[in-house]
């Protein structure tokens, strides 16, 4: 679902997309297995930012990292190093 949100699924906030209730899968494209890195998935679980960091929901785990992960993968394919995050300090 994260891959779909990042690459395929148009969800305009004004309700003119699939949310109008008239779209079916001929218009609303969702990923199939050929869109997924079958057997080539590496999961990296980062430690919490602080000991008192709030609990995360399962959807946050499944959805939020996917678009940046795809961006990173594309960069990696082009042999560009992925820049490290700036040190907040």
């Amino acid at each position, binding site marked *: *679902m994260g891959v779909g949100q990042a690459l395929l699924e148009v969800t305009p906030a004004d309700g003119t997309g699939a949310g109008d209730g008239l779209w*079916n899968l*001929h218009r609303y494209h969702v990923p*199939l*297995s050929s869109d997924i890195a*079958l*057997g080539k998935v590496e999961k990296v679980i980062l430690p919490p930012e602080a000991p008192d960091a709030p609990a995360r929901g399962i959807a946050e785990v499944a959805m939020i990292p996917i678009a940046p992960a795809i961006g990173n993968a594309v960069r990696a394919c082009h042999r560009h190093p992925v820049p490290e995050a700036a040190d907040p300090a």
Partner: protein
Amino acid sequence: MEKIDLAFTLNGEKVSRTGVPGDMKLVDFLREDLGLTGTKFCCGIAVCRVCTVSVAREEGAHQEAIRSCTTPLSDINGRHVTTVEGLEEAGTLHPLQQAFLDNFSFQCGYCCPGFLMASYALLDRLKRQPIPADKVDEAIEDAVGQHVCRCTGYVRYHQAIRQVLLETPGLVT
């Protein structure tokens, strides 16, 4: 709407009705008339493949995965249909069902019967015509590559099917 006399075999049992609408969709007949709700309905336009069942032209003929949401009853006359309810034998799950459970292949489970029946037809094909081990992934993609799953990302479905294909004697050369 033309009425037809219907007679076919479902999960090894004869089913017959007189005066049923010939254009009634198989999924509706399974769910509404026979109460077999294992076969799911979703897009209704043969895209998502949730409603897949397996059909053989006659007993012992090769299994073909079809979409029951767009298959009229008039096409089913005389055929042998297998649904997810017909997979277990004497209370023992089919190896595909067990592998799907063991691999946590599904989460919500709605797409699962479709994946099962398409894989079931694939198994039947490989029993008749085994393939080299390096063609297994390609065969799985052919069989279930158009099925939509929104929960697990397909990885564990493919993993489970691959496991069954490789562990069942005679499917892979």
